[in-house]
């Protein structure tokens, strides 16, 4: 599974800066790979993306996630940081 991560928004309107990040799950150690595949499963991401309406706050970042699964299908999601659980954000920081 390939995960492509980019951001927009934030206090500068420039996301978190930098270029997009690409994570090839096959290159991760087994325990981390399992966690990442579970967290970034397209069905899970779809649920998160659908729970994002009407969130309070300002200057929050939006994550743009493209997941290319084992069959080669692309799944694209725009998920506000505010809709993501803390442990998922911590995982994003380690990738």
């Amino acid at each position, binding site marked *: 599974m390939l995960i492509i991560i980019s951001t927009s928004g934030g*206090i500068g*309107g420039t996301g978190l*800066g930098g270029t997009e990040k690409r994570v090839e799950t096959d290159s991760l150690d087994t325990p981390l790979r399992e966690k990442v595949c579970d967290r970034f499963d397209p069905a899970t991401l779809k649920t998160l993306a659908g729970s994002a*309406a*009407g969130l*309070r706050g*300002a200057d929050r970042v939006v994550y743009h996630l493209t997941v290319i699964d084992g069959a080669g299908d692309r799944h694209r999601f725009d998920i506000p940081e505010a809709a993501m659980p803390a442990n998922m954000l911590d995982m994003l920081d*380690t990738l």
Partner: protein
Amino acid sequence: MCAICDGHARNPITCIVPPHMLEVLAIRGSKKTAAMARSLLDQTRKVRHERAEFRTGRAMLEEAGAMGGFVSTALSRAATQSNLDRAIHDGEGKAGLPGKLLRKEGDPASGDAAVDEAYDGAGNVYRLYFEAFSRDSLDGNGMKLVQTVHHRRNYNNAFWNGEQMVYGDGDGEIFQKFTELSVIGHEMSHGVVQFSGGLLYEGQSGALNESFADVFGALTVQRKLGLEAHETDWLVGKGILGPDIRGVALRSMKAPGTAYSDALLGQDPQPYHMDFFVNTTGDSGGVHINSGVPNHAFYLFAQYLGGKAWEKPGTIWYQTMQRLNNPVATFAQWAAQTVEVAIGLHGAGSLEVLFLKRAWKLVGLPV
């Protein structure tokens, strides 16, 4: 029958509330109401609302003696006693909030620069609102100022999450730590907007929300340094860009579009005039881009008037926010409200009103 309120679990918002109203409730309602509104927004079912709860919420009250007028609760009861109460937490590089409490009100300096900057900065912002506008904290009711520093790892952002302020340390390349005074003032002012009836964080109303935060972030710095309008640089986020980034700040109110020009960050995209308004779906409809227009109008007005910008111009902007009662306001509606407030404070034929109208005209928003 509505699918939401059938059976015994009657929803207090109840049926046929259009989505834009639910978005307002998500901003203005009590915690419970906001959660419910968000839940209803998530669904596509139509619901009805109870009129009284919708009309007043908890942020706006009917103004005594003014037919049909509304003011924020903070403006309706001016604060006489300071209730400054700060709590600074250490996020320890993780995303969980608020994190470990490191410094509470009255504690001595911690020795951690970000913690102490957040503590001192929040005090400066609190005092601006309390001493200049008689507002007791973000909600006008002594709300505790909770802040988290060292949020996540190499985190290039600061934000208001609806309940507290959060600051990253930056990655040291693109951004440095975000506990700069105008940034602290900016984030706290998002809280003031939320507790003043709110401005929907999308399109022009979102850009007004951003602009209000920039204006009062800049005014916090000016007031702390005792600078008059002509003496200050009108920069927001000065010094937070990384050492190799070509730029001076996040935004310039004096010259929108000139804060940075860098190979990595690109060109500062802010317009200074409606002719250059940017139509985009990104950044919630360009909220951090088109805020350049009202930012520049405030700058021009403050320059025309001269003196301390947090006094007359700041009071007009602050009272406009408290009286707007329109979470989906356009730039033109905001401009018209500032003129109405200025007329109330200074008179229709005053220099203040003349200069204010001239400032709006110069950014392409004649009133």
